[in-house]
């Protein structure tokens, strides 16, 4: 069984993002970039499925600038077999990425697409659901456990107030939540090996996809800052202030 694992190049989660002075976006020049953490979890899950003998091949794909090859290499070092970069400079919205992935699914015929539930840059939480819709496949979003057997994927999902388990007929799309697994660090020998694994580069137009965005970003700004309040000296003072000043208890 073949797995397709989309990975996105995003600003590293440890970087404190800064809004550009002209309010057109956030500063991404000279900022550390990494694989979206939720996608890393998806790659790890795919590699585990391969180690268990459930999956036979893992194809890591990314849609983004030429530099996104670095993130594909990271996936290859973790255990993916080969990569595809759909090269495009500029914004790629989830709808466009879903169309790109649909075209790649038509070419590669995977039984399962495993991906992060959302990217930590635009926080849209949409591409997996949209890909499933375009393919007419079932979706298992926010997965904290995935089991594949007998042509089905059983997915435990993180929902408000607890967990929910659904069974999906394969082929299917599953999106990874935080607690699905803890991604491994690639070992040096595997990083070396990953350099020899092939990455194919294609353009959205070759896949028949128009990359034009539907949303225009008019302005990006910092959220209003909260002012730090006062320190209180004791529990008694705290309760007094909450009762008589803030009047919230």
């Amino acid at each position, binding site marked *: 069984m073949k797995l397709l694992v989309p990975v996105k190049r995003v600003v590293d989660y440890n970087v404190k993002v800064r809004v550009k002075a002209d309010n057109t976006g956030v500063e991404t020049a000279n900022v550390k970039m990494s694989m979206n953490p939720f996608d890393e979890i998806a790659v790890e899950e795919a590699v585990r499925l391969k180690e268990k003998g459930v999956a036979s091949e893992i194809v890591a794909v990314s849609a983004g600038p030429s530099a996104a090859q670095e993130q594909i290499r990271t996936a290859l070092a973790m255990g993916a077999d080969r990569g595809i970069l759909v090269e495009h400079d500029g914004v790629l919205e989830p709808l466009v990425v*879903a169309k790109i992935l649909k075209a790649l699914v038509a070419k590669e015929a995977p039984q399962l697409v495993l991906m992060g539930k959302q990217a930590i840059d635009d926080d849209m939480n949409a591409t997996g659901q949209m890909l499933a*819709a375009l393919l007419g496949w079932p979706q298992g979003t926010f997965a904290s456990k995935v089991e594949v057997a007998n042509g089905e994927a059983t997915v435990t999902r993180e929902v408000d107030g607890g967990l929910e*388990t659904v069974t999906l007929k394969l082929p299917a799309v599953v999106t990874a939540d935080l607690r699905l697994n803890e991604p491994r660090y690639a070992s040096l020998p595997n990083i070396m090996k990953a350099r020899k694994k092939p990455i194919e580069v294609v353009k959205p137009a070759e896949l028949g996809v128009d990359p034009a965005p539907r949303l225009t970003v008019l302005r990006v700004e*910092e959220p209003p800052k909260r002012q*730090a309040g006062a320190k209180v000296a004791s529990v008694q003072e705290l309760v007094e202030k909450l009762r008589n000043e803030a009047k919230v208890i």
Partner: protein
Amino acid sequence: MAVLILADHDGSVVSQPTRSAVAAAQKLGEAHVLVLGEGAATAAAAAAALPGVAKVLLAEDPAYAHRLAEPVAALLLALAPGYTHLLAPASAAGKNVMPRLAALLDVQPISDVAGVVDADTFIRPIYAGNALATVRSSDAKKVMTIRAASFDPVPATGGAAPIEPVGAAASDPGLSRFVGAEVQKSERPELTAARVVVSGGRAMGSAENFRLIERLADRLGAAVGASRAAVDAGYAPNDMQVGQTGKIVAPELYIAVGISGAIQHLAGMKDSKVIVAINKDEEAPIFQVADYGLVADLFKALPELEAELAKG
């Protein structure tokens, strides 16, 4: 112009985030609420009682009992021609189904809307709430999820909208099936709807110590939250997590105990009206957003706080 809101409900009442979505819808046009499920008539009556709702659509069918994304998106697609905007609260259920609907409509969804500028222009947080983007959609229909903390919910009663049954959409594709659910049963208010939230962090040290948070919460009639660090350490279940990767809350009073205040946690609670921080590290970033900060050992402060509150 009419706006359709997909309601979250528990079989009897619609959720508070749904009432916030109704409030957001009122800025866009006539609000219609879709209630679906099996035996959802009581919830439909609750939706009809929301002030400002013009019509409730009730879809009762076993296919919607567990709100699987595939049949629900198919139903919304069938209803979409009558609407300019299709909304859901940014809950697990809303986030699951709305992007699927958007793709079926060939529309780019707008997730987690925190502000309505006009019918095409919306404000939403990006980068874990570290920036706010104002975006204008060129799509003919808008598919959106609504960030509950950003809109004051409409009251639960006062309206009297008609309820109209709608048939099930084209046959259930049967792509997925519901196996089971493990729902935490609690007497405490729901985290995203609570007036007061008490949250504990890694400094709680153990799941047993976390009970101190629960006791304080019960004293205040509050919901219990946790930082990601506390959840990862196994002190609290995942669905208590407050933060960008967990729940977004905006209660009247938020008490953060033993939480340092990582950016990802702040993104989930900084819209709270009054924030109290109790932490023994006076340099902890949580104090930069707290209205009242107490530098103290939480194991001393929590019992004292409970005793002081008991004095009433």
